[in-house]
């Protein structure tokens, strides 16, 4: 084994378990004595609970307990500051939004709990909720980012002066993560030790968050999430249902499982806020930017949540401009808690910016690819730092060639195929890579296996396989002998959270550090242990190579050594902590190209094909990276054409089921051509890998929208682009 698996096609190591149904997810555990819980949610949009009648529920067959604000199980509100849910359920009678948790019924079976929950009635004193972003005025500014050229007093002066000016306002309603696995928690207590099975993107943060909610020592909580049915941001915090489940299990002294119904997922575990954005451009006649302003008003729930800031990593990164202003505002509404959703700010923000760029291209007559090259940024427009490794220009050129961009009709609505109008659009993607500390444990076992352990999580991202590939590469061993471990808060502290496309880039260096440290441990044991054939040698005379120790003519496998010295395993921890004051800005980039057809009579919109070329540094596993890119692009197609959950005046989501909230299905998705450049990032780490998991989601919606414009001559600014808006 001398060929490194880095960058090759490695099949998912968790594949066999997943295709046979043997991978256990949170709701798949059946501890002895398990009982089932079902949540009760508020059915008014704002107000106060005056009373709840639980008598029929309590009398229903199999019911063990009913918890409400009037007969609560205690939870502690650990909210501090801003940027998270600011309440815990059942501790007061306030209804902050429709769909808030106001009760939990526990019964012997799922059916008994569900049906008893339906017998509960509630008496509310209600007031009308604030739900309409369209009706709300400008929100509160977060931080305003402004860069002005010398002598410019106000960006508005430049934006008015032109010579070419563009003002584009786009809107999108609430969107949902819709991970295939509904949030579920199975909680078991043994004495004062809690084990929670619950999908989590950051198990080592969710476990202490649950402990804090219960008021217990974080060391007493272990969270296990080896297999998690999708995250997309929606599993980054520990939500109230998990805390409530654990608290009720403690109160009852029995293992408890709470699985959200699909409808409950839509209001209790986060969504992407509705947002209205305006991009204003001033440019020369040749398309060179003179000013770029990007304002946003995003829904922000009174109950707290994650704030949407769509301009920071899009308009604040993508183009060179002498004048730039970003004003990201939040509008308080009585809506369910918001949370980061895959490319949280970047997906909506890039739709606004890249739609505006397409309008500028149309106005100036400059080809959209050429327009972007004319405004190419080689340094971060706000921070002034050079990008660590940027080859976006090659993404544009290679993508254009692969796609056949030269066949794009420059004039909208000028190419047809029978009854179909054909159009092409393109856009630019960028996503930052945060540099984070990471800790990994590498352990040699006497059975010839090596475990590589990280307290991170694999939501389908491919982290299981990345750990195996990284371990194999570091130790010069076949992928098959590496046993990855993740998805368990009890693993060594310091696992990288599965958020921000950060796991691979930040875990790779830690695997290398841990691998080297473990080899050092092995070599020390080899010379120090009297039963070792290398005993007494100078450590410098013993070397490790591809799983074997060598000294002169002596050579033995690490497993043989461990058996010889009677040690089942030897391990070491490796930790990395990159400096935060790098002179470089770390971003991944990409270019999307999309062809659509729109029916001349019905305005049905179909995506014909998609080509994307990415610049993400070193790719660790080609197979799972490709899937991440493709999945992200499919999210962009959904973003552009399907996904919407309008909210009604009473606070009810109009599309809070999987039948009503449309996500792409197989028949919506054409062939997708994905390619990456493969330049290692020389500055990020020795592995050269930046993040890629969310990048495909960025701006792919704009490529679709720009293609629809090219096909029809109609620019739709209010997402999703549905056929009624083209008729």
């Amino acid at each position: 084994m001398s060929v490194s698996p880095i960058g090759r096609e490695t099949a998912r190591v968790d594949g066999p378990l997943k295709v046979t149904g043997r991978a256990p997810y949170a709701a798949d555990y059946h501890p002895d004595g398990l009982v089932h819980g079902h949540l009760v949610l508020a059915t008014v949009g704002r107000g106060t609970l005056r009373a709840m009648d639980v008598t029929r529920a309590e009398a229903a067959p199999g019911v063990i307990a009913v918890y409400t604000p009037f007969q609560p199980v205690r939870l502690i509100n650990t909210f501090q500051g801003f940027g998270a849910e600011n309440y815990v359920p059942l501790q007061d009678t306030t209804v902050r939004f429709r769909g808030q948790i106001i009760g939990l019924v526990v019964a012997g079976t799922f059916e008994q709990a569900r049906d008893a929950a339906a017998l509960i009635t509630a008496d509310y004193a209600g007031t009308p909720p604030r739900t309409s972003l369209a009706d709300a005025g400008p929100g509160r500014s977060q931080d305003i980012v402004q860069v002005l050229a010398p002598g410019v007093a106000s960006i508005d002066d430049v934006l008015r002066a032109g010579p070419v000016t563009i003002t584009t306002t786009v809107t999108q309603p609430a969107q949902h993560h819709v991970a295939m696995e509904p949030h579920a928690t199975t909680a078991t207590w043994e004495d004062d030790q809690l084990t929670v099975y619950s999908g989590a993107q950051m198990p080592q943060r969710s476990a202490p968050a649950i402990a804090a909610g219960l008021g217990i020592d974080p060391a007493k909580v272990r969270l296990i999430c080896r297999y998690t049915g999708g995250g997309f941001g929606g599993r980054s915090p520990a939500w109230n249902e998990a805390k409530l489940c654990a608290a009720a299990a403690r109160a009852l002294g029995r293992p408890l499982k709470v699985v959200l119904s699909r409808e409950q997922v839509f209001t209790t575990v986060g969504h992407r806020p509705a947002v209205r954005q305006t991009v204003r451009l001033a440019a020369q006649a040749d398309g060179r930017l003179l000013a770029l302003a990007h304002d946003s008003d995003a829904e922000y729930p009174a109950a707290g949540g994650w704030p949407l800031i769509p301009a920071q990593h899009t308009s604040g990164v993508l183009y060179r401009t002498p004048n730039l202003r970003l004003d990201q505002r939040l509008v308080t509404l009585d809506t369910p808690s918001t949370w980061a959703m895959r490319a949280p700010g970047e997906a909506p923000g890039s739709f606004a910016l890249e739609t505006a760029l397409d309008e500028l291209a149309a106005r100036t007559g400059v080809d959209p690819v050429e327009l972007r090259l004319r405004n190419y940024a080689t340094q971060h427009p706000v921070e002034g730092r050079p990008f660590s490794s940027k080859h976006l220009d090659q993404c544009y050129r290679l993508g254009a060639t692969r796609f056949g961009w030269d066949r794009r009709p420059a004039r909208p609505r000028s190419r047809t195929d029978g009854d179909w109008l054909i159009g092409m659009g393109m856009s630019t993607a960028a996503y930052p890579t945060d540099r984070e500390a990471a800790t990994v444990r590498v352990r040699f076992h006497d059975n010839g296996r090596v475990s590589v352990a990280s307290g991170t999580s694999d939501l389908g991202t491919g982290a299981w396989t990345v750990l195996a590939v990284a371990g194999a590469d570091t130790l010069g061993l076949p992928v098959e002998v590496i046993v990855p471990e993740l998805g368990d808060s009890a693993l060594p502290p310091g696992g990288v959270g599965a958020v921000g496309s950060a796991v691979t880039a930040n875990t790779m260096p830690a695997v290398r550090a841990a691998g080297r440290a473990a080899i050092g441990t092995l070599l020390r044991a080899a010379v120090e242990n009297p039963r070792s054939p290398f005993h007494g040698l100078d450590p410098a005379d013993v070397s490790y190579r591809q799983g074997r120790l060598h000294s002169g003519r002596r050579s033995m496998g690490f497993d043989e050594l461990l058996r010889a010295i009677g040690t089942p395993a030897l391990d070491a921890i490796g930790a990395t902590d990159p400096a935060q004051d790098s002179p470089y800005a770390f971003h991944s980039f990409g270019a999307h190209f999309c062809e659509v057809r729109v029916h001349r009579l019905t305005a049905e919109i179909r995506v014909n094909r998609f080509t994307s070329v990415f610049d993400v540094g070193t790719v660790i596993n080609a197979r799972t990276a490709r899937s991440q890119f493709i999945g992200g692009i499919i999210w962009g197609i959904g973003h552009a054409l399907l996904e919407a959950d309008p909210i009604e005046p009473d606070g009810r989501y109009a599309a809070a089921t999987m039948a009503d909230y449309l996500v792409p299905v197989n028949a919506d998705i054409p062939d997708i051509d994905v390619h990456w450049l493969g330049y290692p990032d020389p500055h990020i780490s020795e592995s050269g890998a930046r993040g890629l998991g969310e990048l495909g989601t960025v701006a792919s919606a704009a490529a679709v929208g720009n293609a629809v414009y090219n096909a029809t001559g109609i620019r739709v600014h209010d997402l999703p682009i549905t056929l009624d808006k083209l008729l």
Partner: protein
Amino acid sequence: MTESYGISRRELLGRSGTVAAVAATVPLAVADTAPARATTGEVGVRMTVNGSVTPLTVDPRETLLDVLRERLHLTGTKKGCDRGQCGACTVHVDGERVVSCLTLAATLGGSRVTTIEGLARGDRLHPLQQAFIDHDGFQCGFCTSGQIMSAAAVLADGRARTDDEVREQMSGNLCRCGAYPGIVAAIQQARKEAS
């Protein structure tokens, strides 16, 4: 203003002209479509699950999905929506694909049920299972059992030959990770191997 409990939705809707600050007493689980029913009976049912005759006494409310998962601990079949909208719970009943969340167990006397756990022959993966691995036809894996069971029925049916036909036949199985191109490629590989 009502202070009483248990008022029906019909009565509530009958009161018109409520003002901005209203008190409302409404049933809670409307969106859950759960029947307001609290009695339980028991029904004997004998089905064959993955080749084993399985006699059971079930609550008539129990779906095949919940019986598989909670009684038989065959948790490979997943509950994605419980409403027949996502396909994650797809299994075979008498050789046909069904969404097990909309199939009441009590109706399955004498039926043959095959789940993802019954698809492989011992340790040897079914060609579709291997093809899903080869083409990375999944990411998180939660929809995968349903995708594979659905695909097995589509292949047995023999109608889907082109990529577009496969896409159409597989569009009842949602995959939020977006593994659709890999799923189509996997099904085509298995179809070609079988022919």
